[in-house]
């Protein structure tokens, strides 16, 4: 249920980058969300649409790119995705690894439609 507060944070970021009179032009918000960021994307999309339903932002959609959880191994030198969030190297089993990606939660882009020409 913390997806609701994450959705609120996304709204704050939109407000900081898009003038109020252009809210209805916002088409999509691109996000990068790691597989181990602890975010349920369906819940986030639901929360975001619930928060924007009655507002000029109601046309805006979240476009989420999932980032795989990847660890890099100092023993065998491999970097490999580790699906269940396990830090141990999926190749050689060593625990001497560092997390390369998969915990991020970032807004990367906001896409706006062109405004309708005056008098159109």
């Amino acid at each position, binding site marked *: *249920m913390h997806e609701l*507060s994450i959705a609120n944070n996304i709204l704050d970021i939109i407000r900081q980058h898009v003038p109020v009179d252009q809210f209805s032009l916002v088409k999509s918000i691109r996000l990068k969300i790691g597989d181990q960021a602890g975010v349920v994307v369906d819940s986030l999309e639901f929360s975001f649409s619930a928060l924007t339903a009655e507002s000029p932002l109601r046309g805006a959609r979240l476009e989420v790119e999932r980032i795989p959880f990847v660890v890099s191994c100092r023993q065998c030198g491999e970097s490999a995705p580790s699906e269940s969030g396990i830090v141990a190297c999926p190749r050689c089993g060593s625990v001497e690894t560092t*997390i390369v990606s998969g915990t991020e939660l*970032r*807004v990367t882009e906001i896409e706006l*439609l062109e405004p309708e020409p005056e008098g159109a």
Partner: protein
Amino acid sequence: MSVITIERKVLEKNDDLAARNRELFRRHGLFVINLVSSPGSGKTSILERTIEHLAGRVPVGVIEGDVQTDLDAQRIARLRVPVVQIVTNGGCHLDAKLVSDALERLSLDGLHLLIIENVGNLVCPAGYDLGEALKVVVASTTEGDDKPLKYPSMFLHASALIINKVDLLPYVNCHLAALKGNALRINPSLAVFETSCTTGQGIAVWADWLVKKVQAVPAPVVR
């Protein structure tokens, strides 16, 4: 069509406030832990035993987080340590703003250790930095030994794991070695402690580890 490229962390507002909390803690020479777990694992009982063990050695303050009631703060207040309760009214986790507001009701002067007991929830608190030095996750034997695999984020972000209710091991379907092994597969750098708040087993080992951490904190800038 136009695109605004921004690259911003969604929770940066929380992270900024957490950084301010952390700076405040640093100036007070405070060691701060964020105690997380599912509901009913024994966080408050561990706190009580830890405070009893540290009595006269380390001045402790406590911030309690719960969805409703100040029952936990009442329990801690009986031990005569400064405590404030945050009631989230449905919120599933503490955030840096709630902690920052609570700090206005708690004098940090003279404290060396601040323990923030988060809302019982093994998912949401993982993503919210409160300004703590480290997260400590509690897993109790009654929850079974597969919790680290099911909720990896929390174990990934923690620095220490307390396995609580070890006195119940003969009666529950939980294998200590499996629980420990699963947690260490998620996060090999976890410091692991085994405790029972009923028998007192392991409390001293955990509390002494905590004292070493507190003693390693540089002296306060203000007092």
